[in-house]
């Protein structure tokens, strides 16, 4: 049996992997804002406080003050609470900040659910699954 040697040049691959980390953050933030827009479009509206309160917080930006202000402008009685600041592998947190939003999304024992965030997340996750954003990750 003969043995052959070969040389594998991984410089291009290393470069892609290095850039992937930066691209990952950009893609996550872009998807976060798309999720915000999709959820706002689908949120049930009575005063618009809840849809106004949907915002994105990333490691570099925080939309809480604007979202909370817009929610209270639509409904002065609305109580808001900020999302946790992303850390570690979490790159962005998205959602409404009014305190009653989870009861709208998931319903209660006496009230039907009116989901708006889960459908938005399903739509945005399809963009990851169908490869729309893979190219952006490596270019």
């Amino acid at each position: 049996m003969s043995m052959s040697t070969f040389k594998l040049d991984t410089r291009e691959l290393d470069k892609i992997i290095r850039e992937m980390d930066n691209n990952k953050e950009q893609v996550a933030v872009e998807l976060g804002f798309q999720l915000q827009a999709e959820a706002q479009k689908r949120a049930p509206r009575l005063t618009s406080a809840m849809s106004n309160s949907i915002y994105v917080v990333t490691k570099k930006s925080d939309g809480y003050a604007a979202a909370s202000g817009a929610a209270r402008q639509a409904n002065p009685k609305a109580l808001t609470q900020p999302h946790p600041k992303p850390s570690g592998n979490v790159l962005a947190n998205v959602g409404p900040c009014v305190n009653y939003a989870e009861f709208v999304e998931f319903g209660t024992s006496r009230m039907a659910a009116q989901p708006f965030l889960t459908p938005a997340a399903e739509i945005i996750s399809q963009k990851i699954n169908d490869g729309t954003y893979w190219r952006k990750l490596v270019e």
Partner: protein
Amino acid sequence: MSGVLNLVSTGLYTKFTGDTTLKALVASNTSFYAIKAPKDEAYPFVVWSLLYGGPENITPSDLQSHLYFIRAYATSAVTTGNIHARIASLLHLQSITVTGFTNIWLSLEEEYEGEEILETGNTVYMRGGGYRIRLDS
């Protein structure tokens, strides 16, 4: 198209009411409701509703994918956990009968829990899950 939702609801109802263990955990043999329970329904009971889904339109057949939120409400957190566990054992990687379709996939994808305070001051607990139900004609 909306007929599919009725058919899935019938499939879930049939599955739940066919299980004596689950029926023993809720208030009555028929404490299973689509969308929401009737006003003043006695606890514990089970509710399911559509979170997201519809036709996939990627094959000539009628391929459907739905995400259902199936949860239990009770005045005891442990009871809601027991009901949720029983429902998971009946549905996760199992199947339901949906007239005109084959249930090609059914799985528990995520779990939820929460609580609410009623006007009476009593606490009601919720535990449940998001179930992916995929059908093909």
